[in-house]
């Protein structure tokens, strides 16, 4: 696991080099991430009481400046998790009344990210960040670019704090998994 982390650290500059420079690549990257966001939903065991009604929407919220353009809307258009249709919300800040299930935090500053994560800590919310963003640590899922592919790391401890159980299949696929007592 440690070796993995080292590898990620070594690869990180190349990944950013590959992912960042041309504009079309960036939009493609976020198009993939947009689909990953809603695709994460089935691999998470949402605690009872997550939804207020059987047809209550599954809210995917984007905190901070939206990098997805309309990819996210396109990706979730017409899709459902069970009986819950996906819905995209864009928020500037975390408010107590928000009922987001997945929150993609994309603040440019680390302090904002940390604040948002703190605000969401303990709530049944799957927090997702971009690994190359300012200070993305503390979120449950972090997107990373590996070999030109969008991959992710998972902080299982953070998930446990938020009362979420992540499917082992997803954990298997993660480049790195932070457990509660290790890593």
């Amino acid at each position: 696991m440690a070796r993995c982390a080292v590898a990620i650290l070594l690869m990180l500059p190349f990944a950013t080099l590959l992912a960042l420079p041309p504009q079309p690549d960036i939009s493609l990257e976020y198009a993939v991430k947009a689909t990953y966001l809603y695709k994460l939903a089935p691999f998470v065991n949402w605690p009872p009481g997550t939804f207020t009604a059987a047809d209550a929407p599954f809210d995917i919220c984007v905190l901070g400046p939206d990098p997805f353009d309309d990819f996210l809307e396109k990706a979730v258009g017409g899709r459902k998790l069970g009986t819950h249709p996906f819905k995209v919300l864009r928020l500037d800040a975390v408010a107590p009344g928000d009922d987001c299930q997945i929150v993609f935090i994309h603040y440019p500053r680390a302090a904002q990210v940390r604040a948002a994560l703190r605000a969401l800590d303990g709530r049944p919310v799957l927090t997702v960040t971009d690994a190359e963003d300012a200070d993305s640590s503390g979120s449950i899922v972090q997107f990373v670019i590996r070999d030109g592919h969008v991959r992710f790391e998972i902080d299982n401890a953070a998930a446990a704090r938020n009362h979420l159980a992540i499917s082992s299949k997803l954990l298997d696929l993660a480049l790195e998994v932070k457990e509660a007592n290790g890593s």
Partner: protein
Amino acid sequence: MTRPARTHDSMFRKPAAIVASVVLLLLVGTFAMVYQFHAASAERRRQITSQADTLAASVTAAVSFDDRTAAREYVRALMLDPTLDAVAVYDESGHLMAGEQRPGSSPIDPVSGRAERRSMLVEVPARQGATVVGNVWVRASAVPWTMRLARVSGVVLLTIMAVVMLSLLGVAQRMLTRANADAHRRAEELTEANLRLIGEMEQRSRAEEALRQSQKMEAVGQLSGGIAHDFNNMLMIVKSALVLMEHRLGQSVAAVERFAEAARVRIAAGAQQDVSEPLQVLEEALALVAEGRARRQQIKRYLETANDGIDKAADLTRRLLAFARRQPLSAKSVRLDDLIGDIRPLLGHSVGANVRLVYELGSHWHVFCDVNQMENAILNLVINARDAMPEGGQITISTADVHVDADERSGQAAVDQVRLRVADTGVGMSEEVRSRALDPFFTTKPVGKGTGLGLSTILGYVLQSNGRLSIDSEVDKGTIVDIVLPREMRDVSTEVA
């Protein structure tokens, strides 16, 4: 003769049942085979489906997050199962995530795969919770024919064994039936042989009875024949003595009559001369002559009686001789109808007015016999019949030509015969009487009225003529006497001459 038919029937019916059983068995065997094929196929499909399910369940994350490496690893892991031919994982938009196939096999194409209705190709959606994230395709490698055959070999073997056993059963049944039929035929042959044997035994016993009878007759005949000759001789002596006696008697009568005539003349002369003394003597002499005449008359009657008796005795001896066949027959060819026609007046006289004589003459063939004896026999039979009908009745005399076919069983050759029948409507005979009717000296008539030689004499004559005599009688139903003589085959014209 329903039995052979039945055996034939059963011989036919039972193999049919066995053939039906065999056909049924084969049908059931085929059905079981097909069923087993299908069951094995369904089982295999279930296995593949469950393998596909397993893959689908584990590959969802890799599909969702486009991790082809992970997906390929899952696919490779599944392909370790050598019975699988190809495995493919597609994402929800139909892009191939990972696909593996055995060398030489074509990769799975979902478009043609759905059209392809192969039983061993299954498609399973990869679901994470309720969300379908992709599809998993698994194709099983074709099961070799040897394997499939091995799978159904149990049923095939059982069926074949059952068919063989049934066939053996059928063959055994057939053989058994045949053996049964054989045994049945043999039993029938035995029964037939037994019947034949019994028939032969009866015939033999009849022949023995006849032999005994004829021996008895022979003995009686010889005895009576011997006696009859001597008796006849003695009768002749007595007869000649009687003749002489009569002759002598006639002579003495003539002398006495002469003397009486002379005496009467003298008496007439003396009466005129009145010589009473000597006349007295003459009259006394005449009286003596008259007395002698009366006595002679008496003697003559006795002689007549004696002669009569001797004649009867002679007749009797003649019959005895005939019975003993010592009497030579002067046989010639004759038609019985002609013979009976000749003696019809005689027969008519011999029966009383209250007996009707009916003739049914229908014989054209000739027989070889002694005419006198034959006439005598018929007369005797008619008289017997008459005596059996003291109240009157009817006597039917009939003749007929009879052809007797050859009888295989008794070895009797075909023969032509002429039958003479004398039937009456009289008192008939009991079986006991009938069985003894032909014995010599047996008679039912009162003592002195019958000699008991009538029928036995006829029998002797008939046997001498190579014929047969039979009596059929029942008490109160009358009696039928048949005389059967062989047909005379010689040319008739020579007989007439």
